[in-house]
């Protein structure tokens, strides 16, 4: 069986530049991932804070043998945000497209599509492949079987299911961190920085439900899809995406590496993950064509 690859997706949260630098230093040195995404995808207002750290982060990751992908914004609106996408698309490295805005600037050169781009079927996948898509991380609501349907029909593209992390469920023009603090997005005071894994949103009956991260809404629960490697291979899937959180991501990557290498059983992998300081309980419903908050593996 050919080997499986692991990708570390972009950090969704507003981490200070120093935290980002420390995080990626450790990823470069210790995490068994093949590919690492860098860059801001959620909110363009954060970019002036994180931008200065990326050249060193990229150099460090590449020196450690990681393939670096430059991620771009999911909902660009301002002239400055659109220009940033245009500039990133000119880079020689792989670029992650999260909005069609980036496609004309990148068409003809290799790119990755992120989970914010709507790729729901084999025709859309072929269309994007024709423009240069090499890897597709499909919308999180698609099941492994649906992803497999695309992967079997389009063997020239690599499919990368979102396997670990709070699920990116929605993006808005409105900033919920600002709204919660009685502010507007245009003068937000960057209150999202206080919540390094997002801010928990519970129902009025105290059920853990969602999490907010500025303009983004995530699941409160942590999607932790731990399949048998043979189940992935049967769907022609050869790569999984892990989404960064403040828990020990080196350990998370190690668990997934061992799972994909057949050194850990799915149940052992889930047990290992559950012992980490996760921001929510573990779910995997989407992968099994169920509501996202369901936990199929735990029930089985």
């Amino acid at each position, binding site marked *: 069986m050919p080997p499986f690859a692991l990708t570390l997706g972009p950090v969704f949260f507003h981490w200070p530049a120093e935290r980002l630098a420390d995080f990626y230093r450790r990823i470069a040195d210790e995490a068994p991932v093949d590919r690492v995404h860098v860059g801001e995808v959620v909110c363009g207002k954060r970019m002036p804070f994180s931008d200065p750290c990326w050249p060193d982060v990229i150099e460090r990751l590449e020196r450690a043998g990681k393939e670096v992908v430059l991620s771009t914004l999911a909902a660009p609106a301002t002239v400055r945000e659109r220009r940033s996408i245009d500039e990133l698309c000119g880079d020689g490295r792989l670029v992650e497209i999260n909005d*069609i805005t980036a496609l004309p600037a990148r068409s003809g050169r290799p790119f990755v599509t992120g989970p914010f781009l*709507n790729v729901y079927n084999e025709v859309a996948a072929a269309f994007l492949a024709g423009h240069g898509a090499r890897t597709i991380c499909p919308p999180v*609501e698609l099941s492994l079987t649906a992803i497999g349907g695309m992967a079997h029909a389009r063997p020239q593209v690599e499919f990368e299911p979102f396997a670990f992390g709070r699920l990116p469920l929605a993006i*808005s023009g*409105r900033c*919920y961190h600002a709204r*919660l603090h009685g502010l507007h997005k245009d003068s937000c005071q960057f209150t999202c920085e206080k919540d390094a894994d997002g801010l928990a949103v519970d129902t009025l009956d105290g059920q853990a439900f969602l999490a*907010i991260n500025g303009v983004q809404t995530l*699941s409160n629960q942590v999607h932790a899809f731990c399949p048998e490697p043979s189940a992935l291979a049967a769907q022609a899937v050869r790569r999984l995406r892990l989404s960064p959180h403040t828990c020990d991501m080196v350990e998370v990557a190690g668990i997934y590496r061992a799972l994909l290498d057949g050194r850990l059983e799915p149940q052992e992998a889930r047990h290992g993950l559950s012992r980490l300081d996760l921001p929510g309980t573990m779910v995997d419903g989407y992968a099994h064509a169920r509501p996202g908050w369901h936990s199929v593996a735990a029930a089985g």
Partner: protein
Amino acid sequence: MWPQRMELVCPAGTPATLRAAVQAGADAVYCGFRDDTNARNFPGLNFSVPELAEGVRFAHGLGAKVLVAINTFARVGEVDRWRRAADAAVECGADAIIACDVAVLDHVARNHSGRVRLHLSVQAAAGTPEAIGFYARTFGVRRVVIPRVLSVQEIAALNRAIDVETEAFVFGGLCVMIEGRCYLSSYATGRSPNLNGVCSPPEEVSYDEDADGMAARLSGFTIDRYRPGEPAGYPTLCKGRFAAGGKASYLFEEPVSLNAGSLIAGFKAAGVTALKIEGRQRGKGYVAEVVRAFRSAVDAVEAGGDAVEIDRLLAAQSEGGRQTAGAYRKTWR
């Protein structure tokens, strides 16, 4: 400066509503087939192929256009079903197809170019000149329904940068999240706008009474609570009350609907081609009343009427539920 008269695009969930909307003064109506190829896939709504053909004949007879929404994302291995829906719309004589999925756009562009216009659905979430230009060049898209993220000033700037028409929602239900980019519904219920054409579906709703009053729930998640005797609303996910940061609030949005009636003149100045009324799930009486009011308001704006007159014409539409102008005013963000 903008000699063209703004078009009023109105919802038609059923053949009867289509006729009512056209008779009330709609320039165009939009509707969908009775399945999951459209984003209002509700029981008892939408059109069979013969009903659409008849609806098109009726609308064309009164000088109105029919736009057919095929605006969900085709499922893996079932793309042909979405293609056939587009073929059927063309056969029925539809004036335009409103689509978001590349699979549908590509099919229409390749096979029906010249016979039907392509409009880019709001579900495609294309809000920049680059994205809109791409859809226009690649598929010949003639009009884009603009995502509810932009202010009126930003729409004006966008219109200066693109050479396709824009259509803006002016009244009705309001998505708080960027449409086509929201999976909240499938997270809770397993069914979503993109995949199933539904959001917060009724079969997952329960109203449970207890000592504290009543909880409106979706798949068991409490979306809002009401005191005894307080009128309960429908538990739409993004309009619920939740607890975050130590306080309970309508975190995403209050249970409001969109009313940008006071901005019609602003839309015209911003170069918007068409104004859209949401509400394919609404009955014909409601639709006829709203269409009549907006017909008179748009005509008054076109005739140079002032804000006081427009407000008077739309007064009845501002009563009842709570309303917002949404992202069209920058402070909404």
